[in-house]
């Protein structure tokens, strides 16, 4: 997939899933697969989820746009119920994330490994406008980095989520996060959690190994 270059497009425009700029980007229709119960990090989770359906959301349409400074992904998927508040002890929130390799040998399925981190941009339906900038070096090691680096927006309408998750290509940090630039080819992966099915943590639909992402550039603009 190519991240379409839309120079001069503001971040607020990018965060609007209905902005016309999205129509100009190509679409990657992704198949999601539930992370198997056997790969869950603790025996209680493995045994509670063995034989249960994991990965309620099986299909997600992805587009990407950048403006030379900010990269935004738009994710769309069908979800009959909007789970955006913690209404009960049994309630969980719809969520989605974009994962990027923070080093060339990072493995997506294991959420990285020590020294080969996976950088995640996370959206949760009850955190309006917010977004989480996360880093993982293996399953269960996810930690939250600087707040404010990731921005997001989500609209649920007629049984469908349309979510935008965005971050600056380059961020100032000593953490091993993905640093991006136009013309770069990197990988990306997608995870979606369906709150109605009590999906959270490793209980999710996942796109599998890295998909190719190429950030478009204007050759003329190059020095």
């Amino acid at each position: 997939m190519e991240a379409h270059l839309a120079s001069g497009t503001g971040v607020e425009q990018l965060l609007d899933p209905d902005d016309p700029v999205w129509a100009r980007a190509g679409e990657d229709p992704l198949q999601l697969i539930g992370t198997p119960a056997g790969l869950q990090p603790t025996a209680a989770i493995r045994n509670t989820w063995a034989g249960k359906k994991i990965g309620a959301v099986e299909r997600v349409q992805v587009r990407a746009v950048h403006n030379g400074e900010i990269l935004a992904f738009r994710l769309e998927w069908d979800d009959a119920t909007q789970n955006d508040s913690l209404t009960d002890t049994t309630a969980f929130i719809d969520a989605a994330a974009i994962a990027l390799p923070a080093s060339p040998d990072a493995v997506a399925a294991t959420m990285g490994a020590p020294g080969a981190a996976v950088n995640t941009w996370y959206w949760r339906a009850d955190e309006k406008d917010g977004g989480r900038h996360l880093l993982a070096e293996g399953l269960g090691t996810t930690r939250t980095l600087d707040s404010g680096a990731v921005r997001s927006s989500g609209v649920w309408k007629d049984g469908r989520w349309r979510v935008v998750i965005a971050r600056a290509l380059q961020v100032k940090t000593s953490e091993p996060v993905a640093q991006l630039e136009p013309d770069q080819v990197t990988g990306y992966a997608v995870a979606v959690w369906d709150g109605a099915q009590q999906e959270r943590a490793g209980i999710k639909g996942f796109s599998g190994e890295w998909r190719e992402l190429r950030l478009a550039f204007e050759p003329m603009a190059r020095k």
Partner: protein
Amino acid sequence: MTAGKRQLSMVLDLNKCIGCQTCTISCKRLWTRGDGMDYMWWNTVNTKPGRGTPRDWEQMGGGFRDGVAQPGRLPTGRDFGEAWEFNHNEVFHGGKGDKVHLEIKGEKPDWGPNWDEDQGAGDYPNAYYFYLPRICNHCTHPACLDACPRKAIMKREEDGIVLIDEDRCRGYRFCMEACPYKKIYFNHVANVAQKCIFCFPRIEQGVANACARQCPGRVRFVGYRDDEEAPIWKLVDKWKVAIPLHPEYGTDPNVFYVPPIAPPRIDANGNLDESKPRIPNEYLVSLFGPSVLDALKILEAEMSKTRGGEKSELMDLLIAYKWKEMFGGFDRDPATIEWTKG
């Protein structure tokens, strides 16, 4: 898991619990008055036989069988019993106190934290029930700790208290599914799991848990499991009359119970019928496992000794003549300490 250095424990004598809920309220006042904690009762006292809190918690799975983690499920807010709001204003300040009654606002509930109080089981004149106070068992093999993918739950080396690190917790609630005693609560405001902390800030100052110190029934003994001078060790290890609830759940609890002995049955002619106990043995075995029968035998033998005028160390311990001696050294008066909010 390697065993820690020491383990704090509690023994509760079910023969003395009067179901007054002083323990419940002292815990509530101290620990669960914050946002998102309205429905939490880290200490509960329910009537047994009964469905308990949360409703039917004994059927919710979790824990271990033969060391294997068992699937568990989450209780709903309704299972716990929601924190009802009452029309206090209308009754007390609206000038209508003679016409309106105190009632719950909104939908009428069909369950609450102590809904089936004093119902029990059996038929007159041989009906029976007893009170079962419960806190987190600060288990030696905590299912909650094992279940957490974030390693947000720890068991303290120095005293075995099981605590949740709210900074690491992400509100996933796998612990809540895994705890077979359903003693973990979810704070939907803070998005974290919370539970009984064994009053560790008091313990660290030499003060016994609020539920134990406030108990008017002298039901609760507190102390280190291995302190051979103190009541816990004597009741659990020496006399073997204090046993854990549902040992088959495999978590190795550190809260122990002296099982209840009810008054004798009455037969059709109105005479005492001592051929079988009022509380069926099978029922007690279903709660405490087969060792409850041995515990009952020991208790009965010691009771008959004192009836015959003999002395019994066990009966003296259970009567708890000296209140402070129930607390295994944690007998400092909290009023002598200047508490600051951290």
